[in-house]
């Protein structure tokens, strides 16, 4: 039985005092979808999630879950389960009691409750630790208990507030895979808040990127990565982030200091930003690339080489194969495919799609 339901958010607004933390949020989540709300800290993503949960009052707008309008409904009637960043396990209850608490307060019979608890614990591989207390568990185990407590009553929506951020790097990678697998198995609509774009890219069916209370772009991980709508999205996705060079458009050329690149297409002259990703860029012999730069540092990470180059005192990142070698301060050429260059308006950060770099410059 699949009881996943979709979620529709309309014109949601929230202020704390004078701070407008969520501005006109419109978002539709399909049934069974894994949607990641991504953004820097303080962008309003956690507040948005808490409003969906019913923990935060709504200034204006509406939230519908499946068929029903839940805008002014108490959390317990919303049929949503939430995993908190802090896990929020009840320290005086053991694992079984923690997982069973949502059923207990709903008046489920002890026998049925036990079976459900065992089932949920099995799904997160905690069935051997049912009698432990939270203080006797490791971070990863606590995380699993929190998950089990969320799945035990099969809610129609899962809400997760940075659930992996308290785990160490190795465990985080492992739990990420577990989460993804579990969500696909159960097919429950999931809204997941994070500031970690790797988590967003790996987990999400779709990513919704927020900044400063405003939704910037919604799309598949691939869409937001390869077709960013504005400067913020372009700079937020990818590690290391996209390189940006400020410059101007003038008579069919992008000009920034000594760099001059020819363009195709029409665009009014004005200040723009040229962006290109480290992984789309290659270093070639001086004079043969789009422009020349000097080597600042070369870092070998094992699987690849991260090269920082300098152009007119501005540092740019380039990802090169693992056997790349270059001496500091030597001059190299910078090359990337014209289609990998993005232009943004300097004033409002909007993507400029009417012109692009000319091939073969």
């Amino acid at each position, binding site marked *: 039985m699949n009881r996943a339901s979709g979620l529709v958010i309309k014109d949601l607004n929230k202020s704390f005092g004078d701070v407008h933390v969520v501005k006109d949020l419109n978002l539709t989540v399909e049934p069974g979808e894994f949607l990641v709300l991504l953004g820097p800290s303080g962008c309003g993503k956690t507040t948005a999630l808490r409003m969906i*949960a*019913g*923990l935060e009052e709504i200034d204006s707008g509406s939230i519908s879950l499946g068929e029903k309008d839940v805008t002014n409904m*108490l*959390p*317990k009637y919303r049929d*949503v*389960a*939430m995993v*908190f960043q*802090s*896990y*929020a*396990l*009840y*320290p*005086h209850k053991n694992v079984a009691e923690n997982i069973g*608490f*949502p059923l207990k*307060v*709903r008046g489920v019979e002890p026998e049925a409750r036990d079976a459900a608890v065992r089932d949920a614990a099995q799904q997160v591989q905690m069935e051997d630790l049912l009698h432990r*207390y*939270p*203080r*006797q*568990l*490791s*971070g990863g185990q*606590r*995380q699993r208990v929190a998950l089990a*407590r969320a799945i035990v*009553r099969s809610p129609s929506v899962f809400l997760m507030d940075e659930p992996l951020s*308290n*785990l160490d790097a190795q465990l985080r990678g492992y739990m990420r895979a577990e989460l993804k697998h579990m969500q696909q198995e159960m097919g429950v609509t999931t809204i997941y808040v994070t500031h970690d774009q790797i988590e967003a890219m790996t987990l999400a069916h779709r990513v919704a990127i927020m900044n400063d209370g405003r939704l910037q772009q919604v799309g598949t991980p691939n869409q937001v990565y390869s077709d960013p709508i504005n400067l913020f999205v372009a700079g937020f996705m990818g590690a290391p982030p996209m390189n940006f060079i400020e410059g101007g458009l003038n008579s069919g050329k992008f000009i920034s200091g000594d760099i001059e690149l020819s363009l195709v297409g029409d665009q009014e002259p004005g200040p723009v930003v040229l962006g290109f990703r480290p992984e789309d860029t290659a270093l070639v012999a001086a004079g043969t690339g789009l422009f020349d730069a000097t080597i600042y540092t070369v870092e070998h990470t094992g699987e690849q080489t991260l090269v920082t180059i300098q152009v007119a005192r501005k540092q740019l990142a380039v990802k090169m194969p693992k056997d790349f070698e270059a001496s500091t301060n030597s001059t190299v050429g910078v090359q990337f495919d014209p289609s990998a260059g993005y232009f943004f308006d300097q004033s409002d950060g909007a993507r400029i799609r009417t012109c692009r770099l000319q091939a073969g410059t």
Partner: protein
Amino acid sequence: MKNERSLMTQLFEPPAIGKMAPATKIVVYTVLLSWTAFVLFPIYWIIITSFKSAVDVNRGPFFVPWVDFTPSLHAWKELFVFDWKDTLQAYFNSIIIALSATLLCVGIGSMAAYALARVEYKPKFGSIVIFVLSMVGAFLGVGYLGMDWRLSLAVALAVFFFLVKALSKHFKASVGNGDILFWMISQRILPPIVVVVPIYMMFQSVHLLDTHIAIILTYTVINLPIAVWLMYDFFVSIPKDLEESAQLDGATRLMTFWEIVLPLSRPGLAATTLLVMILSWNEYLFALFLSTSRAQTMPILVAAMNAGERGILWWSMSVVIVVMIIPVILMALLLQSFISKGVLLGAVKG
């Protein structure tokens, strides 16, 4: 020498007692044992004095029973055989009053503290002024105009609600939870002697002098600030996530309080209960004013032992003190198992 610890660090950050050198161990144990003896000696002295005869007390000081003096039960007999009615009445008075006052005080205090810790209050300063003024009006109505107090109170409340409804939009300054807390604790800063006469007159006018109710109410009120203050600190330390999680799990506010908040605040409740109880148990000044015979408590009985025409009755006083200490010790033993650390361990973070 980097590993050499300075004398100061050796003194103030000593190693665990099991890891000390034998000589240090002896010194440490000697110091600790003599301090224990020093602290416990007054209790020992009271206990042996309760078994001394008048002669032994006056010829004293005698320290060891059966060696220095022959213990006798005369003081115990006097209090529990001849005067048993007075003694036991005072004893039961003390128990009833201390228990009821503690129960009321911790009950009301912890609810108030929970509200202050979890709900944000923003009463307008102007509304508070209006409330005080209407209450003053109600008193004047009863005192000078001879109105029935129910009518007077109803009129005052009606005036208050009307004025607040009409004017509160125009008030700017408001007070917050911190101000409310401080106002409460400020009530305790006042020396009790200042209010003892008004409180006496108040209970006199409602004919409750020398009753349990008067003393219970007084103790509840004077200890409320302490209970609120202690429990507030405790509730604030309970992560809000736990309660929000319980709400999402489907619990009502009351269930959340019973299932999550109360079990977690057991140590705080135990400590607060113990403190409020000891304060009520030992209170003297208000008991002295508010009770004359029927509602007398143990501290009054103790004090009475040095006011008689026979001089100070050290032996009888010691008996009363011994029986007074016993319930407090029992209560402390009972509650100390709750006052354990680390209840919140494992609630949040890894």
